[in-house]
């Protein structure tokens, strides 16, 4: 084993930081060009590629090196369809009570406002809009991707295990995009962790918690590319102790 690592280390070259204004290197390019993909080819992703993507997740940093993740890979289209159907049903049920957009029914609006107050992340207008689209069948859950990877976290792990899932997931997503594959983060899978049918079938029970999922597949067209994005204010305490704001 150590011989193998030595051989790999001999191959590697020392990395150098770029000069100011240099073009993006390969890693930066993958990061900046990554776009969520919602339009996939039917062609299945070969097993070795999925294994390589999972391997990138395995080597992600985690709190106390506790590796708080468990991955479930789905390549069975029937199963993905079943899960999609159940997610749609859950969305429909939620919309029945909280659909305030052009329903004109006052009590639904009250429900939605109440939900926004107590679950302001879930009932943020953006996921709410997506939930409505899913319930109406206008938006797919996994967008017809041939491979779905579910992320479970071990809740006994140190620190914030849900954060570790995010780190591992981003490693995997960037790796997939460097192969020319497409991915999309889908957190609408979380209702499956509450349905007894799926809890039993997928083994989602303590200490495991279903956190999120990604869809993986070959994209149609060429979705990766640069776009504009809002800048965020960064407070920067410079060496003399004063604070400047950069964008």
């Amino acid at each position, binding site marked *: 084993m150590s011989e193998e690592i030595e051989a790999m280390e001999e191959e590697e070259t020392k990395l150098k930081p770029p000069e*100011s*204004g*240099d*073009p*993006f290197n390969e890693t*930066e390019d993958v990061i*900046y*060009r990554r*776009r*969520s*993909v*919602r*339009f996939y080819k039917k062609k299945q992703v070969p097993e070795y590629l999925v294994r390589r993507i999972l391997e990138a997740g395995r080597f992600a940093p985690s709190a106390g090196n506790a590796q708080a993740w468990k991955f479930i890979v789905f390549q069975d289209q029937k199963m993905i369809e079943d899960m999609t159907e159940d997610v749609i049903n859950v969305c429909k049920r939620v919309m029945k009570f909280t659909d*305030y*957009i*052009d329903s004109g029914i006052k009590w639904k*609006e009250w429900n*939605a*406002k109440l939900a*926004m*107050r107590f679950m*302001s992340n879930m009932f*943020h*207008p*953006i996921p*709410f*809009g*997506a939930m409505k*689209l899913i319930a109406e069948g*206008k*938006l797919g859950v996994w967008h017809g991707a041939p491979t779905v990877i579910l992320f479970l976290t071990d809740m006994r792990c140190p620190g914030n295990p849900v954060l570790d899932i995010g780190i591992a997931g981003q490693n995997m997503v960037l790796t997939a995009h460097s192969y020319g594959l497409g991915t999309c983060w889908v957190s609408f899978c979380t209702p499956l962790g509450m349905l007894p049918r799926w809890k039993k079938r997928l083994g989602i029970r303590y200490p495991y918690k279903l956190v999120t999922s990604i869809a993986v597949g070959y994209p*149609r*067209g*060429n*979705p*990766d*590319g*640069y*776009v*504009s*994005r*809002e*800048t*965020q*204010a960064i*407070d920067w305490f410079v060496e003399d102790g004063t*604070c400047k*704001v950069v*964008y």
Partner: protein
Amino acid sequence: MPEYLTRKDKRKIESYSRLGEDMILGEVVIDRDRCNGCGLCVGACAASAIEMVDKKARMVEDFPACISCGDCVAICPEDAIKMTTFIEFKRYFRYIDRGKPEPPRKF
């Protein structure tokens, strides 16, 4: 210095059904002459805000829930799409500490 929400903001949560007042949705402009009707942007849209009419793409007229993710801009093979308005909320969910949109920068 950072912006904050006040307690009053926390109490006042709107239902976000009044477009233009409580919520400003994202907007893209599609160049109809350049559009070749491939339909990639319709599939790429995260909010089903683009539809095909007469083999040309256009934004959905009623409630285009565009989140200005830029997926359509990136996927368009003819570079016919441009983002003009970015999504914005008022009151509780308003974005704070944001600057102007920029493409990836080399410093």
